[in-house]
């Protein structure tokens, strides 16, 4: 008879996975208590559903369409600063949404740079509010993601194919047909689907650039029902709609979602012999310049406006920054406590459902979980003092799928490579973590921690539900300053927030590699 060998690590993983499921399931229970499904959907709910789907679809389509030429140009050109630019394409991932929105407002807003240029030329200005603005911000965040996904695909085309194409002297049209179209067919649907799902649960962008009956996402509608009307029944109903929509979309696209290119490794040198003509070069250069400008200008705007605004910041900003730091650190701790055992559990299994638990973070939206927990907590305790810990917990859950993507493959690798040695030495449980997994995975653990810290410090989501004036995080405080038209102070806070997000990421990422010898 064949005895199944005991896995070296991973027994605590079921506990951690169970905890995640419990947090989400309990929030459902809370929603179920209050949602009056029989009430049906009114015109406002339908409008929110329609807008959510429409803006997600536009965001996905435009991001991917713009990403195709950009990725193509990046794939076939070598130039100074290419590596830096590709690294920068990863930056929006840890860029606080509210900071980017302020940057976009500075560039594209009513009195922004673009409109001033248009004004001096006598052209009509453009408005960034409503559908345009929401889609613009989503493209700002997801164009880099789509570009990285496509670039990864392009670089997966073996160099030999390009050599063969050069040897056969294939014309550009033929190269497109034989090499590029098959690739696009493979990557584009997945990239678009991923962006679509991400945008479905968008909150901070809709909060700042959307609003009104014509530009309210479901997530924003939950917030409004909760915050302005304190209509828990409506908030619950909307949350359930959100769950059904985002959850089913996530399930459907789960099969075509590509691997997330979170880590580096996109700067592999690949020699190309095609597209050497001057027109091609100029076109590619123009596309790269345009793409870089679109990404860099808002960031520069934050830097400039922020430096000017720093002295204008009221002291509450510093207090909020302290809160945010606390939330981020707590998030990191919670994330590691959940993600490491879960990764250990998943790694010792062949494949399967365990990873799906991690994906809960993608489909269950923060405001939905927040609303559910509010309903549960409210009768027994005052939820307001719990605002910060609950935010930290939910932030950790949102970072979980990314952390698992980062941790599981190398963990599986380490456990396979040293499987026999660890078994023959009887290394099990904590000693196996202490002496094998943790030291071998320092870099990835640091990366996951940094990612979580940055996401958490910049998150403007569930905190907006719970907080009172005394308990704001920095993104929320910044939003309040923007709402009060204290733009300089908000810009200062944005710079501070940006520095904190990048700083947290940098400290965790570099700290973990510090004096690492292997």
């Amino acid at each position, binding site marked *: 008879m064949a005895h199944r060998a005991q896995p070296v690590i991973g027994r605590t993983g079921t506990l951690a996975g169970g905890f995640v499921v419990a947090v989400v399931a309990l929030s459902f229970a809370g929603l179920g208590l209050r949602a009056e499904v029989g009430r049906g959907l009114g015109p406002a709910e339908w409008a929110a559903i329609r807008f959510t789907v429409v803006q997600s679809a536009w965001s996905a389509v435009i991001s991917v369409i713009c990403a195709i030429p950009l990725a193509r140009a990046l794939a076939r050109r070598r130039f100074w600063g290419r590596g830096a630019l590709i690294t920068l394409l990863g930056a929006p991932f840890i860029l606080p949404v509210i900071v980017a929105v302020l940057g976009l407002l500075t560039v594209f807003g009513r009195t922004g740079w673009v409109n001033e240029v248009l004004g001096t030329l006598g052209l009509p200005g453009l408005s960034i509010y409503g559908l345009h603005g929401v889609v613009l911000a989503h493209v700002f965040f997801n164009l880099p993601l789509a570009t990285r996904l496509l670039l990864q695909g392009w670089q997966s085309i073996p160099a030999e194919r390009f050599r063969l194409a050069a040897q056969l002297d294939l014309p550009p049209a033929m190269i497109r047909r034989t090499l590029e179209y098959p690739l696009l067919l493979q990557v584009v649907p997945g990239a678009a689907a991923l962006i679509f799902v991400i945008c479905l649960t968008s909150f901070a962008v809709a909060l700042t650039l959307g609003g009104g009956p014509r530009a309210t996402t479901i997530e924003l509608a939950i917030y409004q029902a909760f915050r302005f009307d304190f209509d828990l029944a409506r908030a619950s109903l909307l949350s359930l709609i959100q769950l059904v929509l985002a959850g089913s979309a996530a399930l459907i696209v789960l099969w075509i979602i590509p691997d997330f290119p979170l880590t580096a490794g996109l700067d592999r040198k690949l020699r190309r012999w095609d597209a050497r003509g001057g027109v091609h070069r100029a076109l590619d250069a123009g596309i790269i310049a345009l793409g870089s400008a679109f990404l860099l200008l808002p960031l520069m705007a934050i830097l400039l406006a922020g430096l000017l605004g720093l002295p204008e910041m009221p002291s509450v900003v510093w207090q909020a920054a302290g809160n945010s730091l606390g939330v981020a650190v707590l998030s990191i701790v919670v994330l590691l406590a959940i993600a490491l055992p879960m990764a250990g559990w998943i790694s010792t299994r062949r494949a399967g459902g365990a990873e799906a638990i991690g994906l809960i973070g993608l489909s269950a939206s923060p405001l939905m979980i927040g609303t559910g927990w509010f309903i549960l907590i409210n009768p027994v305790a005052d939820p307001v003092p719990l605002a910060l810990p609950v935010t930290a917990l939910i932030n950790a859950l949102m970072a979980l799928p990314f952390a698992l993507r980062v941790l599981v493959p190398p963990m599986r690798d380490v456990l396979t490579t040293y499987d026999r040695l660890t078994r023959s030495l009887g290394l099990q449980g904590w000693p196996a973590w202490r002496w094998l997994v943790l*030291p071998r995975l320092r870099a990835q653990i640091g990366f996951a921690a940094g990612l979580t810290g940055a996401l958490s410090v910049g998150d403007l989501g569930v905190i907006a539900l719970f907080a009172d004036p005394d308990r704001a995080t920095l993104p929320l405080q910044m939003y309040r300053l923007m709402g009060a038209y204290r733009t300089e102070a908000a810009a200062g806070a944005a710079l501070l927030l940006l520095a904190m997000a990048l700083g947290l990421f940098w400290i965790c990422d570099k700290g973990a590699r510090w004096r690492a010898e292997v």
Partner: protein
Amino acid sequence: MLRFETIRIAQGDFALEADFEIVSGRKTAVIGPSGAGKSTLLGAIGGFLPLASGRLWWQDRDITHTAPGQRPIAMLFQDNNLFPHLSIAQNIGLGIRPDLKLTPEDRARVDLALERVGLGGMSARKPGALSGGQQSRAALARVLVQDRPVILLDEPFAALGPALRQEMLDLVQELSTETEATLLMVTHDPADVRRIADDVIFVEGGRAAAPQPAAALLENPPPALRAYLG
């Protein structure tokens, strides 16, 4: 003694049978063509492959289902015998206690083992800072502190040059004689067999033959072994 009681190891289409005893303290070479199942046999003894049927005994203890770390066995593999992120002393210390909670006496044992294999003063280094031969010595030092009655070598020195490999085999020979351990080692080289082995297990055609005295067998090999030796 190590007793194989009508053992059958199955991996997909491949199966290997063994039914014999190895007397304690003997040094046995496992030889046979590539893919015949030499490593499979050692893997099963080490507890890494389940037995499809049969029992494995050490003295009068049934170790068929014992976890690898609980068996009276120390094993060296073809590669990955040392953790690259741990110092040599830590790597060897794991052989005494898997949680590395070492007493001063334990540390003294580690140092002694390092001296014995000729790596005195290198305890703080990482494996990467050692040569291939030194890494092999460090792995042998761990086998020494593990102090198990059975030692399995699955060609751990295959990547070393011929002279270095001879050196390691001599060291293995000395160490296993000193500790009176039962040694099983996979090898391809008849010279290795002559140098170190008392007995030979010839693995071929899905069967591991009972151990035969090495000298006699090499003098007068049966047809299958003759074909293998060329």
